[in-house]
């Protein structure tokens, strides 16, 4: 008897109309029909290939052969010679692990806060946050940026991304100066720029540089769901299977210094002027969304992209609330329909207009048109 095993680091994410193989090792995902999922499930439950052909009958023989050829050619699976061999390949654990009380932070840095950034960074470092985004809704000169980045000396923060307004002085020399010291800066986005361009990091400039014509004046711009943000990689997918893919181990500080799950969320757990980040973290509500996965969210639970997609709890369709009072509605800014497999512009959907008004996103939507 021959058995067929899907490589256990390829995870099938079953959608209502079609499915996805998330290849965690090769960091890519492929769409597959649900017929194939049925066959994979059958084979994975230790049905031999011979029995499978028998079950599906002569009329499906060719299709099944094609499917098996597809899986082997793309190295999604392999044949086992016996049940004994088949059973030696246990499923891979899908547990998510990793140390640190907080792993990522998003801070809207007001001018006032800029002066006290040191104490915030010290606290984040203590929680062993390793990645953060600093949003400056204003132009920053080279001295300003350098002095911000100097505050990271001696921390274990390994990635800093900066968003700031474009201004005349931003050019090759500006970036060279910014690169002169080794800092954890990994990307800088200049909005309100006269052009759109992305320069990935290289041997001369050790961080990505992006220019965008958009005018990022508030955090209302965040929460976009698009295929461009889909990402298949080990930690990302495992985190999405076990936790909220956006908010887990995240902390946000808004422009007023309010400590939140993300700057765009409504609930505040204190203000940095009087509350320590570690205290806010202990607030009973702080982690309420950390365990909410896409499997708990309306529509998303039927979507094949749910483990490679990143969630948004700040802007949702406001259609579903669970028994614990958590918002389990689909992200507002997603235009994908898993029932028809079609993408549409999210902002024009008639049922979303109320939510758009609720969040005060009308202006942003108009500007995008």
């Amino acid at each position: 008897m021959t058995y067929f095993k899907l490589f256990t680091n390829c995870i099938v994410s079953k959608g209502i109309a079609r499915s996805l193989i998330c290849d965690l090792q090769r960091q890519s995902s492929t769409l597959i029909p649900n017929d194939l999922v049925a066959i994979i499930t059958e084979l994975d439950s230790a049905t031999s290939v011979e029995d499978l052909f028998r079950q599906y009958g002569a009329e499906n023989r060719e299709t099944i052969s094609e499917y098996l050829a597809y899986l082997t050619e793309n190295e999604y699976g392999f044949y086992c010679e016996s049940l004994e061999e088949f059973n030696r390949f246990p499923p891979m654990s899908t547990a998510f692990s990793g140390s640190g009380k907080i792993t990522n932070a998003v801070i809207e840095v007001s001018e006032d806060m800029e002066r006290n950034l040191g104490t915030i960074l010290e606290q984040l470092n203590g929680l062993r946050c390793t990645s953060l985004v600093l949003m400056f809704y204003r132009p920053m000169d080279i001295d300003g940026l350098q002095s911000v980045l100097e505050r990271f000396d001696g921390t274990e923060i390994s990635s800093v991304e900066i968003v700031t307004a474009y201004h005349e002085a931003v050019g090759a020399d500006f970036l060279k100066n910014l690169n002169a010291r080794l800092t954890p800066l990994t990307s800088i986005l200049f909005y309100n720029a006269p052009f759109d361009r992305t320069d990935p990091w290289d041997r001369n400039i050790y961080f990505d540089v992006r220019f965008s014509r958009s005018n990022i004046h508030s955090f209302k711009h965040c929460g976009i769901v698009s295929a461009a943000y889909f990402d298949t990689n080990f930690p990302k997918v495992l985190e999405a299977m076990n936790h909220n893919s956006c908010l887990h181990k995240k902390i946000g500080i808004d422009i007023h210094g309010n400590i939140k799950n993300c700057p765009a969320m409504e609930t505040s757990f204190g203000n940095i002027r009087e509350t320590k980040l570690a205290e806010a973290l202990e607030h009973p509500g702080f982690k309420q969304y950390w365990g909410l996965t896409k499997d708990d969210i309306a529509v998303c639970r039927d979507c094949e992209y749910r483990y490679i997609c990143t969630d948004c709890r700040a802007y949702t369709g406001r259609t579903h609330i669970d028994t614990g009072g958590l918002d389990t509605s689909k992200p507002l800014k997603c235009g994908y329909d898993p029932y028809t497999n079609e993408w549409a512009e999210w902002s024009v959907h008639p049922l979303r207009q109320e939510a758009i008004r609720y969040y005060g996103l009308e202006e942003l939507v108009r500007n995008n048109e």
Partner: protein
Amino acid sequence: MILIFSEVNDLSTLAVAGYLDDYGVPYTVVLKTDTLRYTDADKGTLYIGENKICLKDIHAVWFRRGKFFIRSNAFKDRELDLYLYENNVIIEDYVNYKLEQVKSIGSAAGLHVNKLIVLEKAKACGLTVPDYCLEHDFQQQDATYIVKGVNGNTHFNSDQLRIILPVVKLNDSHSSGLSFFQRYTEKKYELRIFYLHGRFWSMAIFSQNDPQTTTDFRKYNKERPNRNIPYTLPTAIEAKLTCLMESLSLNTGSIDMIVTPSLEHVFLEVNPVGQFGMVSLPCNYNLEKEIADFLKS
């Protein structure tokens, strides 16, 4: 207090330290570049640069990379240096011996193993090993043989050069200095196994599809990386490997095996300070946490 001997660039140590931080368990990392001293004060005190730790406060030791050693200031005189060295070795051995009295991962003595002794002991424990011999002259055989360095090193550096000693499949007769010849074993997949105090975490590496990697998977193919997935060893093989590890007095190590097309498990080698990250990450075993938990408890 947990004592960890390691190196500055070791990501696995960093990952384990992250969990120890989560647990709030104190630990000290000793690097090969640190200056170490020992005195009998307080029933044994270790000095690491400016820091001092009493041996009685240490409840676990991880010999990740390196061990207690005394950097001696050379007299530039052969006899004097030799005298000092011999003197220091006794102190080093003694301190390491004392460190090994608590719960430990790895050991000072077990940093190196003798491949030839390992193979003999593996056979004695009932493991299948490829036929091998130490010879000067190689006569062409019916079976394919490979020749490789007996110390397991595939390269070494000299000045600005790297000398690579590839594993070679032999087709004709050769004569040379004493060499290690091993019968080439066909494989369905390779196994990389991490062993820690009686437990096994195994990974199967499917490399046969790719001619680039048929003899050595470390020659990495970035375009289409080999498939690496979790594997469960048959209990009989686990028992034999445990026998081997115990006979080598190793409480940890990374073991290489081959599964042949006829599904036989063939033992190749054991590395007492093997990388477990390369098993842990692809299989999501989270061995970094297992190690932190072991050291903490």
